[in-house]
């Protein structure tokens, strides 16, 4: 079964969530600074958030494992649209094909919702919380 677009968008949200739960301060500095920022995940699941103000390494493996299909790498480019509105382009390289997804979301909404639900990140990724996933999908514009 090949991954669907909503699943990929959810993965993008979860990667940001892990970055945030790994280091809230650095993550906020990067996403709030001027200019683009990127998230790259390699085959071993090592993820890197890179922006003009710095970078942060975190473990993206649990999120990629949840997709099912083997992911060789992920590259996501985030760029500012309006205030707090972020557009993104992402490519998930599978073994044979690549799946790319385009979208936009409110970064503040995503990160601030963390205080209520999102911050239980790592634990929740291991035990999937369908209610939270629904909320993420809504924020990320998933179906």
């Amino acid at each position, binding site marked *: 079964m090949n991954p669907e677009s909503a699943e990929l968008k959810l993965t993008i949200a979860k990667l940001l969530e892990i970055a945030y739960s790994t280091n809230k301060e650095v993550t906020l500095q990067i996403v709030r600074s001027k200019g683009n920022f990127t998230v790259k995940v390699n085959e071993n699941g090592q993820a890197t958030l890179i922006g003009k103000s710095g970078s942060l390494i975190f473990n993206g493996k649990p999120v990629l494992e949840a997709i099912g299909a083997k992911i060789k790498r992920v590259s996501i480019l985030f760029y500012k649209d309006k205030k707090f509105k972020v557009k993104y382009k992402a490519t998930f390289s599978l073994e044979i094909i690549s799946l790319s997804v385009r979208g*936009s979301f409110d970064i503040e909404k995503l990160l601030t919702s963390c205080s209520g639900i999102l911050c239980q990140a790592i634990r929740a990724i291991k035990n999937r919380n369908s209610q939270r996933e629904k909320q993420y999908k809504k924020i990320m514009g998933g179906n």
Partner: protein
Amino acid sequence: MKYLCIIFALLVSGCASFNKESTLYTNYEQYKESTLKSKDYIKYFSEVITNNINASNESQLLFSKYMSKELHHYERINNKIGCLTVNGVGDKNEPVSFFLEYKNENKKWLISDIDVTFLEDKKNYNSKALCPKDVRVK
């Protein structure tokens, strides 16, 4: 009369080369039709791809299932490499594009690279033939 015949012949050959412009799309249509049958579809892929197939990733060759309705397509061929872009929508009417690279191997056009892009809006469709490497985030 002789000259008229020559002009007519030139026009006909012109039409024939115009038809050649849909080579890749015709090939894509044949691949798509083959996905409805057994495992016939494998013959539409280059060795670059078939050498890496195993039981867990073979379903990726059925990428055409991501699109339930086609809207437009564009293709270009440069010597032995071709690019085909197919725009359409998925089951829930969400916009999706296929970017395919073709290689001419032993006089056959075979799919050698694939990107499936899920777009945010139909206005974001590309209106030219692009290869997967042109659209991937690096």
